[in-house]
């Protein structure tokens, strides 16, 4: 599946998509168009990186796609569910059941152990989850012996792996990662990205990652470039060099 990356994919294969998604902050003269009628589709089983200079709207796009924020105009769909039709509560439940998150830092609840953090969305839903799947995810993290530890007893890389495991554990339709390697050293970053790549290849997960690091983006199947709230370019099967070249072209 990693080779079927196109902007206009059939809707049936889309894990998430935006249709003419527009986000405007403020009003009148001070209004800012953070997203400007964006159309984008994230295919199932694909790892997509979103890149762009600061203020390009990449974080806003992720927030809107993930149901953390609402678009001003247009549509955002997770699977076949139109997020604009959902109440605040249903949106929360959608995040819990259908979306996974990995943030740059502060990903884990400090009072819960690693395994409790991994199980958090399922525990909130009051469901046991798919035990075999969870076991598989946990063993993939390589942290089987540290599961009873609290986040403060884990290294930065270990914490991020637990965060990725939490995102995977509930088998969501799509996982959004916001600079997941922004806060760790190069080696650890590589380790985490490898783990994410593995989740896509071995477990068939759909991942969307916001980053400004060309090296990190090169792990993705596809890179989408954003400038001034618009998608200006994209790159399939990227390498760090090609990404940097594109970025330079975009004047970032």
């Amino acid at each position, binding site marked *: 599946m990693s080779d079927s990356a196109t902007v206009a994919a059939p809707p049936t294969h889309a894990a998430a998509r935006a249709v003419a998604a527009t986000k405007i902050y403020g009003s009148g003269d001070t209004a800012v168009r953070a997203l400007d009628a964006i159309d984008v589709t994230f295919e199932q089983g694909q790892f997509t990186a979103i890149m762009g200079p600061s203020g390009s709207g990449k974080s806003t796009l992720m927030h809107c796609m993930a149901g*953390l924020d609402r678009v001003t105009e247009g549509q955002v769909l997770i699977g076949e569910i139109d997020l604009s039709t959902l109440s605040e509560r249903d949106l929360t439940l959608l995040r819990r059941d259908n979306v996974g998150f990995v943030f740059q830092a*502060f990903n884990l609840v*400090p009072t819960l152990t690693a395994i409790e953090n991994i199980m958090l*969305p399922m*525990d*909130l839903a009051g469901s046991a989850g798919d035990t075999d799947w969870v076991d598989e995810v946990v063993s993939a993290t390589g942290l089987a012996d540290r599961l009873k530890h609290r986040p403060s007893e884990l290294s930065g890389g270990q914490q991020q792996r637990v965060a990725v495991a939490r995102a995977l554990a509930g088998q969501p339709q799509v996982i959004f990662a916001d600079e997941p390697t922004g806060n760790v050293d190069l080696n650890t970053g590589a380790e985490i990205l490898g783990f994410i790549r593995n989740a896509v290849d071995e477990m068939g997960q759909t991942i969307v990652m916001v980053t400004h690091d060309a090296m990190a983006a090169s792990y993705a199947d596809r890179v989408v470039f954003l400038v001034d709230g618009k998608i200006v370019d994209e790159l399939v099967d990227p390498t760090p060099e090609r990404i940097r070249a594109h970025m330079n072209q975009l004047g970032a």
Partner: protein
Amino acid sequence: MLKLALRNLLDKKIRFALTTLSVVIGVTFVVGTFALTDSLRSTFGDLAEDIAGETDLTVRAAQQVGGETDRPTIPDSLLDDVAAIDGVVEASGTVQARNVVIVDGEGNAIRPQGPPALGMNYSSRVFFVIDGRAPDGPGEFVVDATTATGNNLEVGQTYTVNGPVRSQPFELVGIFNFGSPDTNTSLGQTMSVFDNNTAQQFLGFGDRLMEIRVLVDGDVEEVQSAIAALGHEYEVITQETAAAEQSEQFQSVLNVFTSILLVFAFIAVFVSAFIINNTFQIVVTQRVREIGLWRAIGVTPKQVSRSIVVESAVVGLLSTAIGIAVGMAVSVLMRAIIRASGFGLPSGPLVLRPRTVILALVIGLGVTMVASIVPAMRARRITPVAALAHDYRIERSGWRMRVAVGGAVTALGVACLALGMAGVGSAATVLALTGVGALVTFVGINVSSPAIARPVVRVLGRPIQALFGMPGKLARENAARNPRRTASTAGALMIGVTLMATTAVVGASVRNSVSDALTDAVSADYFIRSEGSQFDPATGFPAQVMDDLGDLDILESVVGYRVAFGGMVVGGQSRDLVSADFDAVEEHLDGGVISGSIAAGDPLTGVALHVDPAEDLGLSVGDTLEATFPDNETVTLTVAAIYTDAIIYGNWLVDNALWEQHLSRRDYRFGTAVVAGLDDLAADPQLAQSQAELLERSEIAIAETVAGFPGVIGENRAEFREANEELVNSIFAVITVLLGLSFVIALVGITNTLALSVFERTREIGLLRAVGMTRRQLRRAVRWEAAIVATFGGLMGVVVGMILGVAGSLATPDSFITTVDVPFGTLAIYVVAAALAGLLAAVLPARRAGRMNILDAIAHE
């Protein structure tokens, strides 16, 4: 640095408001108490001068023994002797008695709640008739305006008046203002005023007087010594002394009132200090990075701690100012309430004395600043690294140290408490020891309790987790997260609950002791008392009631009882005195006589006493002792019996005959009656029918007799016991309600801590919401966290309170408490109440947490 401190306060308005609120409550209490009592005091002082103002000299019997109500009388023949002295312009005799109760047109006794019901003789100098005329003749009386209007008494009507000796109808011929022609300043007393002869007879003075008031033309001192020369059994006091005594009487009542209120104010302030301390601790923790940054750019540790002290000073000053304003408003309100409740209160200015302001400052500013010292010192230890490190922790003393120090402080407090309870030293010392002991104990527990906070809170949270799943688990973990904060928050609540629990244990013990005494030792069938006697130990009913009951054939015997606090001096100490009828009293109330016989005692020279004073003085039956009475007579008494139950007889019991020889009061405080032949019937089960019949007939007979004296109550055993239990319950209920105030302050503390914790966990909350925690689940987690912390505080309070209550009950003399009872039901209710209070306190913080914008929360630094 001042600028920085101020900026900090303005930035965190809610936190600031909540911290201020807890100080304001304490200061309000203190200022309100002082402003009210100072105002009353100045009004009473003026009034005392007014009352004494018209008299140059007052002649009365000298008195060494007993209270003012037990002052001996003087013969009215003295009046002529005084009038004959050169320079005396006018000499008039006065009499005054308590428990002179008017029965209104509907047959209800008019008995003020608290102030006395007085009977007096008329004098145009203090009673200003505003309607009708002055009393003149044996069947007439006048009353004060407040009593007349409050009870619809009309001039020209005839009303029954219960005097100390008998009940008699009088025609109301006038209504007067007391103290001043314009307003009645009777201060809630009811005043029935008769002409001189009538007052003497009706109030039981015979041909004797209480005082002679003298107007002098010429040298007052000369006249004073001339009167004094009439006999050493008399004393002559000047206008100034009389005014001072009068005002002292008012003051003593006020002082009790002030002390009680101040105790509660003190508790409120103490609880506030806990909350302030906790708030500043949290604030320092939250600002670690910021303070680290200050340090990095060159702010010295001293400047850091100073800025925190400045911040606390601003909080302290502002809340003191608000507290003073609110306190004044409260005192105005209280005065209005007192006035509205029919307490004839003279109007006067609101008094705010410098002392009150200074005290408010010491409390408001002082407590706030003292409470901020430890956090300020902690802030000094923050190094510049804090600005950079991700999760920086301020170094702090270890658990072992904490437990050791806390344990030592607790032990010190307990030692003080023990000394206080053991009754070492004077009453003031006992109070101080107990108060300081309790305070130190609380501080000690607060220092060491973080050591147990985590395990206890974990256990308490287990059922919450089982019940609510993940939100429950988060509530439990968050409650256990910061043991010091949890312990401190719970500590504020613990204080209130401890005091309430102590009160509950002591209250239950008193109630049960009274009940036991009534069950075991009472064989009388009926009990006579006057309405309101529960609240005022000075109330009584006419002696005639017992005489009339004694005439009933259906009753075998009746006994009347009188009480005089300090009514006798034995061995250089004043002793509380009870009088009864020796011949029958043992058949009515069994005081547990262990040697001798009360009935065998001589009515005029016999005395029975409790085993404790008997042991102290080395007295046994047949021994003699010298007793001095209020009439300054010293009598040799013979010990007739020694008994063990002080709840029934008090410590010293004499016969009514002896009392009537040496003390002036004639009314009875209490009476008992035994039905004739009831015991014989009770012995035979076949006669149960006739027993019930006999009881019914006797009840009717007693009711008929008592009906002639409105305001006098005849109760059977069950009714009497119920009334007593109700009394104990209502007293302790009032105390509990007042203590509940500290509970409310503690709630503010929980809200405050929780609001700060929620703010501190902004990112975590954002994360939880992002991964799918609903608002409801989040609010639930916050609320139950508060409930767990509050339950912890409630539990600590109940445990400590139970220990203090049991210890206090054991240490209380047997005359009050014989059995110790722990009301587990009530204590359990307190714990549940604490939990519910926690849920309530969390409502606002939980709402705030629920409303947080997820994106802002995630991005929060």
